[in-house]
């Protein structure tokens, strides 16, 4: 199978592990692995070689740190180098006097229109009044697409139905923004090749006229070696101010981020993580480095958990766990809380691929429909059954299966899972009492 950058790094570092001293020879073996990994992760060849040279120089020149083993030391240097290449997190820019114009540019099929909708929604959730407009007068149904995307994302869209010139459309949208007190105008543009002189000139003209606060280059995370050429050319002609990396919910490692950043100097400001309109996140360079290095994106996971989990319910549950009163109802609540955090696939992708988790299958079969089925089964129980699962006999199981459109076998499976979870909680509780610490920070045992 395609070895991910993460796995490669791990293998490279495993060879370094256990070495008392870092020899040049060992280092070169590891660097060779890292080079392969970077190339397979679509980091541009030149960029990769430059990175390696500077990693090598630092690794050899660095003083031996007593607290770090040689492999840890190399990990740290690689981490620092990738991190410093990606730069610090960078905030979006707004014009001193609204409305700010953000120009959305990129190659065909990179995800400009979807991203425009997502950014619009993101702006709206951050207290702005965005207006989106499509200047793509070339691709069939492109403007209709943005109109539908905007409707889905709940963002205002300027129709400009009777105009046919990109510049006229943008101007009209700007006028409309002033009238409707919109403070950010997102101008979606037609996808184009960086070597298409005529269309690149059109963008330059749009820039000149609109004086955008942001010119965002939308880049497909799956793009290969050519990224430096296309991004470089867009940058040369327009002066990009930021990058949005799309389709990062696949198994692309995001090596393009390094290449594009290197060649344009523009920071990655957003990442797209799915087809839903809220699947957009600000870019956290250290998190992506962590993801590349196999430390997982725990920060994103924790942040999402904090945003969505219901604190009061969590506390209630903690109390119940302490009293070992985990009912089927609580089981269902847990499922719902997890669902609120986003798709399971996204969550699994954020887990670190190290330690016990490193053998997780890559396309872990996180079937959302199965979750739904479990929920349906619990919903088909009576309140009394949910409170005490001992009530659920064969006859009741049949009824629950009918009610939830499943089979008795499915119902049995859910009950088995639930009892397994209960058993684990009991054990955990007993362990907590033994150590006298209760369940971590959740409180002391009663």
């Amino acid at each position, binding site marked *: 199978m*395609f070895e991910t950058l993460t796995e490669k790094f791990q293998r490279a570092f495993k060879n370094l592990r256990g070495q008392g001293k870092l020899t040049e020879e060992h280092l070169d073996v590891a660097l060779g692995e890292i080079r*392969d990994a970077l*190339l*397979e*992760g*679509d980091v541009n*060849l030149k960029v990769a070689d430059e990175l390696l040279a500077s990693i090598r120089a630092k690794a050899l020149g660095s003083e031996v740190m007593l607290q770090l083993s040689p492999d840890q030391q190399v990990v740290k240097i690689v981490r620092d180098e990738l991190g410093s290449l990606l730069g610090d997190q960078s905030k979006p820019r707004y014009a001193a006097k609204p409305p700010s114009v953000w120009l959305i540019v990129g*190659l*065909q*099929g*990179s*995800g400009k*229109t*979807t991203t425009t909708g997502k950014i619009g929604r993101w702006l709206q959730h951050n207290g702005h009044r965005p207006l989106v407009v499509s200047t793509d007068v*070339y*691709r*069939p*149904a*492109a403007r*209709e*697409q*943005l*109109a*539908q*995307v905007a409707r*889905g994302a709940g963002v205002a869209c300027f129709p400009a139905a009777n105009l046919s010139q990109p510049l006229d459309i943008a101007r009209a949208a700007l006028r409309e923004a002033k009238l409707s007190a919109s403070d950010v105008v997102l101008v979606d543009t037609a996808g184009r*090749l*960086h*070597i298409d002189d005529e269309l690149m000139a059109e963008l330059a003209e749009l820039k000149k006229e609109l004086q955008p606060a942001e010119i965002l280059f939308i880049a*497909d995370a*799956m*793009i*290969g*070696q*050519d*990224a430096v*050429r*296309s991004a470089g*050319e867009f940058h040369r002609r327009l002066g990009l101010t930021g990058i949005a990396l799309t*389709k990062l*919910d*696949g*198994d*692309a490692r995001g*090596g*393009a981020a390094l290449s594009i950043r290197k060649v344009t100097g523009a920071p990655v400001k957003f990442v797209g993580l799915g*087809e839903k309109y809220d699947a957009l996140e600000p870019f956290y360079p250290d998190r992506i480095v962590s993801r590349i290095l196999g430390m997982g994106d725990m920060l994103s996971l924790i942040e999402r958990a904090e945003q969505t989990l219901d604190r009061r319910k969590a506390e209630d549950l903690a109390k119940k766990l302490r009293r070992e009163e985990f009912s089927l109802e609580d089981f269902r609540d847990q499922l719902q809380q997890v669902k609120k955090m986003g798709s399971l*696939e996204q969550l699994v992708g954020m887990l670190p691929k190290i330690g016990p988790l490193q053998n997780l299958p*890559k*396309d872990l*079969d*996180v*079937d*959302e*429909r199965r979750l739904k089925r479990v929920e349906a089964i619990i919903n088909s129980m009576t309140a009394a059954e949910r409170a005490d699962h001992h009530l659920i006999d064969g006859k009741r199981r049949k009824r629950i299966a009918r009610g939830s459109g499943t089979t008795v076998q499915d119902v049995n499976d859910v009950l088995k899972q639930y009892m397994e979870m209960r058993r684990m909680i009991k054990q955990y509780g007993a362990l907590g009492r033994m150590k006298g610490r209760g369940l971590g920070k959740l409180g002391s045992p009663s």
Partner: protein
Amino acid sequence: MITLFGPPEPTLAERLKKSVSRTREVLTMPLGELLAGGQKIDEALLKKLETALLSADLGVRTTREVLAALREEAEQQKITDSGQVRAELKKKLSGILCAPAARNGTVESAPMVIFVVGVNGTGKTTTIGKLANRLRKDNRSVLLCAADTFRAAAVEQLEIWARRNGIEMVRQKTGADPAAVVFDGLAAARARGVDVVIVDTAGRLHTKSNLMAELEKMKRTAAKQVAGAPHEVLLVLDATTGQNGLAQAREFTEHAGVTGLVLTKLDGTAKGGIAVAIVRELGLPIRFVGTGEQIDDLLPFDAATFVNSLLD
């Protein structure tokens, strides 16, 4: 007999050359001079070859294997001059690309059913518009089936291509079950005695197991309506795609039974080298290449031209 290919295209080399010459303006690849001949084959030369192949997205493994074979031949004195390296390299790459025994793309009785699949944004819908045009030129009756019921305005986009081609399209509401649209489309094709049905599918990342399962369901539905359908499953691959292309091809082949590739956006500066790795590993033939946004910018794949553009 219905065939997927029209008469041979004399303009192929010219047209690719046009896009390649634009390429040359942007980047001057020293490979042409490098392989001009008269030089010794040494490590420095092989290193430069490696750079060229990696830059064309052939990937670490394919590049390494091709170079190892060249090195061996040099050691055995089979090739001694840098000029021969070029010819040898071309032979090797063409060999990989021509290896897959392409099905002849024909069915005995109408309608022939073609599924067009791929990740988001590779150019599926545009390719369908162009493919329909090719078939129309070959005097085939074509019906489009708008089974991308997910993406905003995907149906409208396909409808414009149907209109440009003067052909009919079967559609349902946005959000409808794509398998149901396939069912309708194939039923309509049978009723009207259409030669070819092209089914547009929603772009999906190959890692989404539920969406891949949806493709499988669409295939099953098609097979129930027309025996042996889909006869062709074309995976549309963006030439700018890097190493992830291999994972895409693997997953789509496993779940959707891909029968051939369409390499799009070759009019840019990307070489599409990942296609070599895909053909090599999965034995899939490249059927067509896309070289622009116009209706006739779709050409049958030609290995020699493609390899030349890789090495030029």
